[in-house]
């Protein structure tokens, strides 16, 4: 019963993390399923990148709260991933004849799915995270990997040197070969930050995964174990320089910032233009009628999606699909997630209102922000599905629900 369709390159997407830093937003769903930019989910970005790069076989490794994500992915049709050969596969941990266990770490998650990967007999495996917002052509990265005859290629982004100590930093030779990897170094030697996007030559990675599993002291993690071990063994490891927009949306502040970058466009976010026919970002469609701005509605500098009705005033905000903004409500600098309701007279500023949450009449949520450092925005958050009673007051940076 061997699958005889060979794929040159397949992708494995790590989507099992809980995303604790997103607090109430990931209480009931995995991070990749969190809504983004009015009609997308975070996972739409890596999935769309794959299909746009010509990768049509993707394993999505899920573990934490997987139902929403499984349902969203379905048969992969919205991303054109419903294929006769290949397509998209959700891979939660499973039982074997003698044992079964949770994914212990990122490397163990791939190790447990060696059979799945072997079935496609790929030359290369792309390893992706489900919590990054960016548009990237993995085919170009694969070409560099092949040209370098590399065993491993890691995508890197130049970050301001003063911020480099927040990232995993790669120190490179002139030919972009990696000689050192430092996780969050106090005194960074370079500003090339790892984006958590890898291409491995499968035969090499497979060997390391098997060895790593046998090592009882290992944490079975790519960043902590596999990459350092490959470096120590002097495998051919190269950096692939990426110049476009990229953001890890693992925190409330960065999630808010990335949404605002989409809205703002322009300097630094040119590459985040979603209205790009040559690199579409696909999403599951909600079959809602067009949005309606009522005679009392006022909308400026906003992104709004289908099924939404606006009776109030909305400024500098992302209003997702199926949202209702009541009369005399005021929304500024906020992200209102799908299905949420902002009732009459409520005032919402610099906040994230979770999906299906209700902000009651006359509530005051969040505060207009004075200057904040990037990454340190004081964003208030209302949990998905939370019902905020009328006239509640929620201060800046508070998380409710």
């Amino acid at each position: 019963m061997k699958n005889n369709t060979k794929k040159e390159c397949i992708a494995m997407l790590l989507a099992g993390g809980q995303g604790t830093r997103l607090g109430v937003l990931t209480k009931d769903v995995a991070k990749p399923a969190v809504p983004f930019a009015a009609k997308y989910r975070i996972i739409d970005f890596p999935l769309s990148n794959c299909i746009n790069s010509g990768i049509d076989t993707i394993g999505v490794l899920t573990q934490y709260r997987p139902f929403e994500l499984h349902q969203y992915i379905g048969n992969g049709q919205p991303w054109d991933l419903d294929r006769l050969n290949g397509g998209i596969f959700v891979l939660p941990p499973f039982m074997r004849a003698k044992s079964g266990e949770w994914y212990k770490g990122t490397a163990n998650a791939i190790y447990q799915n060696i059979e799945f990967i072997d079935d496609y007999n790929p030359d290369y495996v792309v390893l992706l995270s489900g919590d990054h917002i960016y548009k990237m052509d993995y085919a170009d990265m694969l070409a560099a990997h092949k040209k370098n005859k590399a065993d491993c290629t890691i995508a890197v982004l130049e970050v301001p040197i003063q911020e480099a100590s927040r990232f995993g930093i790669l120190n490179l030779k002139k030919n972009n070969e990696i000689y050192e990897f430092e996780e969050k170094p106090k005194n960074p030697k370079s500003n090339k930050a790892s984006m958590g996007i890898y291409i491995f030559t499968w035969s090499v990675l497979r060997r390391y995964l098997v060895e790593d599993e046998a090592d009882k002291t290992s944490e079975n993690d790519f960043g902590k174990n596999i990459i350092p071990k490959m470096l120590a063994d002097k495998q051919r490891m190269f950096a692939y320089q990426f110049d476009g927009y990229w953001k890890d949306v693992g925190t409330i502040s960065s999630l808010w910032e990335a949404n605002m970058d989409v809205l703002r466009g322009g300097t630094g976010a040119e590459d985040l233009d979603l209205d790009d026919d040559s690199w579409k970002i696909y999403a599951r469609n909600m079959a809602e009628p067009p949005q309606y701005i009522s005679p009392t509605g006022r909308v400026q500098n906003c992104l709004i999606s289908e099924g939404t009705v606006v009776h109030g005033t909305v400024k500098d905000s992302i209003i997702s699909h199926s949202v209702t903004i009541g009369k005399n409500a005021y929304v500024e600098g906020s992200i209102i997630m799908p299905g949420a309701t902002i009732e009459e007279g409520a005032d919402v500023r610099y906040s994230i209102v979770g999906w299906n949450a209700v902000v009651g009449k006359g509530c005051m949520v969040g505060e207009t922000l004075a200057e904040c450092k990037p990454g340190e925005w004081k964003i208030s958050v209302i949990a998905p599905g939370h019902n905020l009673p009328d006239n509640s007051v929620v201060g800046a940076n508070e998380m409710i629900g």
Partner: protein
Amino acid sequence: MKNNAAAVLFASDEDSHLNDLTIHRTTASLPFGGRYRLIDFVLSNLVHANITKIGIITRNNYNSLMDHIRQGRDWNLNRKNSGISVYPPFVFNAAHEVYKGKIEALYMLRGFLMNSNEEYVVISNTNIAFNIDFDEVEKFHEEKGADITMLTYTTADITSRKLLVTTDKNKRITDIRFPVASDTGKRLCNLNIYYVKKDLLISLIDNAYAHGAYDFEKDILRAGLDELYVMSYEVDNYVAVIDRIPTYFKSSMDLLNPEVREDLFYNHSTILTKVKDSVPTKYKEGANVHNSLIADGCEIDGTVENSVLFRSVKVGKGAVIRNSIIMENGIIMENAQLDYTITDKDCIIQSGRRLSGYESYPMVVVKGKVI
């Protein structure tokens, strides 16, 4: 649950006069309501009731319809069993002529009907925006012991092409006739949707075709009123029959009314359409939008009032759009002004141009025109 009916849809309606709007397309594929084509409504209603074996009869200009339907995936109609088929006019027609009326067209589809396992057939025009439960129609048909159930609606929009329906207390239709000058006010009219047992339909069609008849309503329904139980199922929620440009305009403006949207989009069926992966709509600093229905993918930097904008419309700074319908990919450049205007797909209205029609006679800009 599985439904016991197949459906035959007519992509064109000979009685419609949509002029410039249907030069390039069937009435079925006329854009409506910001992101839909008219056929989406009947298709969605059928799919909601699990009526999934659907044949569409086309007459001419069916390219846009084929492009819209594809394999029917957007309506969940890409099935192994049943699904959707589009029949171009000549497929079964040895005479090499486009069919004359519904009888000839249905006779052409005799094979489709014979091959379907379903016991009943829904026959419908496609120029109707509505949201009903076909299960209720089936129940009515059974309860009344009908031979043919005709869907009817009450309207004041009485044109010479409408068929007025008279019923008795039991909803049996006693007369079907054209309107005359004295027929004013609201009247019960034929909605051009029928529910009928397949075997009966085939025998009626065979008999009529053999006698050279081609008008379904006149030669089968009216001629058979005495012998057949033709029952009237009255649709009492929102119905728009789009057959002339003023009704297209008025029905589009009806969508600005929340009750109409509730009735049409959230009633029984989810209205499905071809997915285009448009981005969310962007309202810029100059946006001043009131009482308007806006699809995704637009970019608005001007004034939009009492209007419907389809997907991916661009409105430049200082442009003013009032009481208008702008179809997909329309570009309204800086300081252009539109009032009571319908621009078809891909139109460009250049900077500072002013176009104006009237409520009773909106101006229509033909597809792809640059003004």
